[in-house]
């Protein structure tokens, strides 16, 4: 994870056959400029970044489901629960499940666990919009590829 660059997903570990569930892993860094302010002497991952982590895992899932034809943008967070503090070096197991793949939008249920204990969960809504240009689309696909998105789910060619 590079919190200050919003790179929240270290690696994609699995995507199920129907492309309805994605599991990912991240390790909270020992140090980050974020911890200098949140909070001095008591470093904690901000809750909004945990929401962002669930959103990014969900985003990779939604894009994989639709052949990386559009970018999901987070537009709604429902029933968000931040259940415990998350400190540096915490290992995070992120799961995103596709609740609904609509026309121009998607809804996921996402959660993060550590050592089997649920840290947070929420229902997330995304509006999907075409990539602004080919270069942006390629960048997104490369991000997915570098994180271990299964090859058969990436655009071919």
């Amino acid at each position, binding site marked *: 994870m590079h919190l200050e660059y919003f790179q929240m997903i270290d690696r994609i570990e699995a995507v199920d056959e129907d492309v309805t569930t994605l599991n990912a892993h991240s390790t909270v860094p020992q140090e980050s400029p974020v911890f200098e302010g949140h909070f001095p002497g008591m470093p904690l991952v901000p809750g909004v970044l945990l929401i962002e982590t669930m959103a990014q895992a969900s985003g990779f899932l939604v894009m994989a489901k639709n052949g990386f034809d559009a970018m999901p943008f987070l537009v709604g967070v429902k029933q968000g629960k931040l259940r415990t503090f998350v400190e540096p070096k915490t290992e995070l197991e992120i799961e995103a499940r596709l609740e609904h793949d*609509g026309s121009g939008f998607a809804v996921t249920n996402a959660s993060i666990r550590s050592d089997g204990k649920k840290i947070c969960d929420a229902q997330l809504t995304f509006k999907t919009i075409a990539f602004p240009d080919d270069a942006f689309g390629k960048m997104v696909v490369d991000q997915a590829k570098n994180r271990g998105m299964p090859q058969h789910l990436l655009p071919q060619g």
Partner: protein
Amino acid sequence: MSTFDKVADIISETSEIPREEITPDSHTIDDLGIDSLDFLDIVFAIDKEFGIKIPMEAWTEEVNNGNASTEDYFVMKNLCTRIDELAAAKA
């Protein structure tokens, strides 16, 4: 319960529009003032209720291209007709 009643209930519950203000002739955007984010939640609820996928992107494109009016899709009675057609096509 009719399609209209189901959809009106969904709209009322999602957007806090009083149920009695929703009529078959209500335009969901112009009359009821549903914003885009609430409309997204409403489409999600309708998709789930009827087991369909409302083709919002195709409808929007048709309107933007001048091949359909917003009334064709977003006046309640017309929206319900479209929903019935989509549900029948899926059955």
